[in-house]
């Protein structure tokens, strides 16, 4: 959804959606199960499509493969760095929780609303600053890379694009059929059926 919105702002919602879609597949490999701090794919979903659509105008080709790969790579990088930021924010919340203990012990019930409002605004301000900073920095790096060797970058992206789609799809399929032996057998049967239908349809 972030990809579609970022794309719409840049005048090409569908291209933004493609970057967002590939990042979504990667996000499935890092879901916040248990107490795990997930990678920051929310920020990645905004930065990635923005970088892709910005670099689209910098690259000499009309194909979207290179901007898509550069957008996704930027998104993956932002997701990894963002995870560290989320961890830092969560560690800072310990202080707020302790402050809340003191206030509740003093009989101030409304302190719980204040603590949460502060927590939300804090996270929003840090998140917005990080999104803006990461977008500007990665756009500058991307533009410098394009100016340095656009040809090599395009060749690399042409090779990497299907590999990244494959990796994303592989991660998603693994997650989808992770429900035990029966699910895997059902998937195998459905896959054989699908191959047969496609083969007969040729």
């Amino acid at each position, binding site marked *: 959804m972030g*990809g579609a919105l970022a794309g719409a702002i840049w005048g090409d919602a569908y291209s933004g*959606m*493609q970057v967002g*879609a590939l990042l*979504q597949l*990667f996000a*499935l*490999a*890092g*879901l*916040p*199960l*248990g*107490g795990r701090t997930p990678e920051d794919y929310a920020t990645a979903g905004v930065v990635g499509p923005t970088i892709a659509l910005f670099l689209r105008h910098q690259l000499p080709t009309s194909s979207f*493969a290179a901007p898509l790969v550069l957008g*996704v790579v930027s998104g*993956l*990088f932002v997701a*990894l760095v963002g995870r560290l930021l989320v961890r830092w924010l969560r*560690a800072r*919340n310990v202080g*707020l*929780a302790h402050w809340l203990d003191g206030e*509740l*012990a003093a009989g101030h*019930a409304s302190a*719980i*609303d204040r*603590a949460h409002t502060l927590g939300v605004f804090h*996270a929003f301000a840090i998140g917005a600053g990080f999104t803006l900073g990461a977008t500007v920095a990665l756009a500058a790096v991307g533009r410098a890379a394009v100016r340095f060797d656009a040809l*090599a970058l395009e*060749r*690399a992206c*042409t*090779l*990497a694009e*299907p*590999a*990244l*789609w*494959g*990796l*994303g*799809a*592989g*991660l*998603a*399929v*693994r*997650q*989808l*059929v*992770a*429900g035990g032996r*029966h*699910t895997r057998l*059902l*998937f195998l049967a*459905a*896959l054989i059926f699908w191959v047969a239908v496609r083969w007969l349809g040729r």
Partner: protein
Amino acid sequence: MMRVRKIDLARVVARSFLLQALWNPERQQGAGFALALRPLFGRLFGREGEARALARHTGYFNTNPAFASYALGAVGRLEADRAEGAEIPAEAVDRAKATLGPALAALGDSLIWSTMRPVAAALGVTWVLAGSAYGPLLFLLLYNALHLYVRVRGVLVGWRLGLGFWEEGMRRRLQRLRVGLRVCAVVGAVALADAMVRHVAAAPSDTAPGALVVGAGLGLAWGEGRRLSASLVGLGLFSLALAWATLVR
């Protein structure tokens, strides 16, 4: 003590969206759990007792954010019974929370995170690759249909039945839902594989099928709990492609 009204339960549902706003490694969702229950505590304990009741609930708690709604409803009911004079010690409420947290986490994580989210994402991505602009909307609708239903129903059922919500019937219904979602997951997986093949078939490059197979193989081999995250693997793949493009002219 004032009577709890429907609007108070609606406020519990609304506040449950902030369950993780003050998430921290020490108590995880503890503060959020207390925040969500505040509308009930205001009614049940009045101005004087409210802060004391909230303080009892800011301790450690962690579960699946959507399925936490059942714990909120059930614990709210226990506190209401206590306020009405039932002989329920505070330790019994703590024990109920400690038991419900992991049980609901196991159920919610497998149903919401491991099944519904991938199914919705796979179908949404498939639609995007098929050229439709409604892929993200489909993802949002599919995912939130179950997610929002659980958030609202959990509070209502937990409030109505207390700890009794955890009866055999609910587990059977959820098991049936999980089986249905597994079938959807298989359909989603095949649809995604089909979309990938079509996408690569349309690519002008000769290396595309081979690269897709290498990427897919890596993705399928990549399991949960690996030290190296999938994002790093993606960045590694791009770095290899860049090294190849720079060195082989």
